[in-house]
């Protein structure tokens, strides 16, 4: 585990020409960067490509990192923006079938009602806007504070709070609606 100061000196050395040290930063932050990319593009191979692209961009902009925010926050914001641009460009493409199947395949050993709810909420998640869905997902990962998550997503903290609450409300409302419809068809 390296401290913020050690991280800054590492960055200085990378800027000075010791590029191989960048691998240390990539290793440290790759999982969360990949997670962010995956939440946005919803496809593993594409998320991997997007996260790698984000790291490469961050490397080229490293001199511009002004150290007002944490390196992680700055990096994740680049990854997030890269993922959003990628998704906008590829909006028309079909979503990978692999990801959809996972939602419905793990029915074993769980109560049917509970599992049904899970499937219904997964369906409702697809109806949320990208901004609301990503906000609520990153909020629940609990890896970073709300302030840091807001900074990563380039949003005001109050906006993020509202998004998270609103997204959960919508999911609950959608779940209620689906359950009512299900009850009527029985």
């Amino acid at each position, binding site marked *: 585990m390296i401290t913020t100061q050690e991280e800054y000196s590492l960055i200085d050395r990378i800027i000075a020409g010791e590029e191989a040290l960048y691998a240390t930063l990539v290793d440290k932050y790759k999982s969360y960067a990949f997670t962010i990319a995956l939440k946005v593009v919803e496809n593993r191979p594409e998320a991997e490509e997007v996260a790698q692209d984000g790291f490469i961009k961050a490397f080229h902009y490293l001199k511009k990192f002004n150290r007002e925010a944490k390196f992680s926050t700055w990096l994740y914001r680049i990854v997030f923006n890269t993922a959003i641009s990628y998704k906008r460009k590829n909006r028309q493409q079909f979503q990978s079938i692999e990801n959809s199947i996972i939602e419905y395949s793990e029915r074993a050993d769980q109560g049917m009602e509970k599992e049904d709810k899970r499937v219904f909420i997964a369906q409702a998640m697809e109806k949320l806007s990208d901004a609301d869905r990503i906000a609520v997902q990153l909020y629940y990962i609990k890896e970073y504070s709300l302030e840091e998550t807001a900074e990563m997503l380039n949003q005001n903290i109050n906006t993020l709070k509202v998004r998270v609450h609103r997204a*959960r409300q919508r999911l609950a409302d959608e779940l209620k609606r689906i359950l009512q419809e299900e009850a009527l068809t029985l």
Partner: protein
Amino acid sequence: MIMENLTDDQLLNFLDGNTTEAERDKVNKLNGLNPEVKKRVEELQAVHFFLQNQNKIEQPSKTFTEKVMAGLHARPSFTLLSPKNGLLLLVGLMVASGLAIMLVSAGSFDQWHTFFRLGQVPLKNNLVKLPTSIPFDLKLTVKIFVMINVVIGFVLLDRTILRPIFQKRAGRFS
């Protein structure tokens, strides 16, 4: 949704553990007494537990770091066009070139050669000498247009379709 002075926001704060003891007691009390509150708590709780279980840190492939390091100085890929737009442009170029070739083969441009006459352009001095005429052959122009289209077509095919496909495939198998 508002039930007996209890809002969704209060219930969500309760689930997040962001409430005072008094607020917690109020929710617990109403949850036991009011079926409407109980139902709403259950709905929000189902969402809360679903999100808690779904969202974990994902791990990228083992070669992630090597790929980033290898790509630090790689030439940036052609990103102006998506594969779909690239394909559409390529089809457009092929159609235009095909039509042009058909018209040339049918001899439609055989009569279209002329001269732009410049002999009567008034010049104030004798320092610049203009040719009296410039030959123009539409058939040759169309052939050049087709050649340029073919070159652009190959570049498009490579940058927007073939290269992304092979890069993606290489990424999947490595």
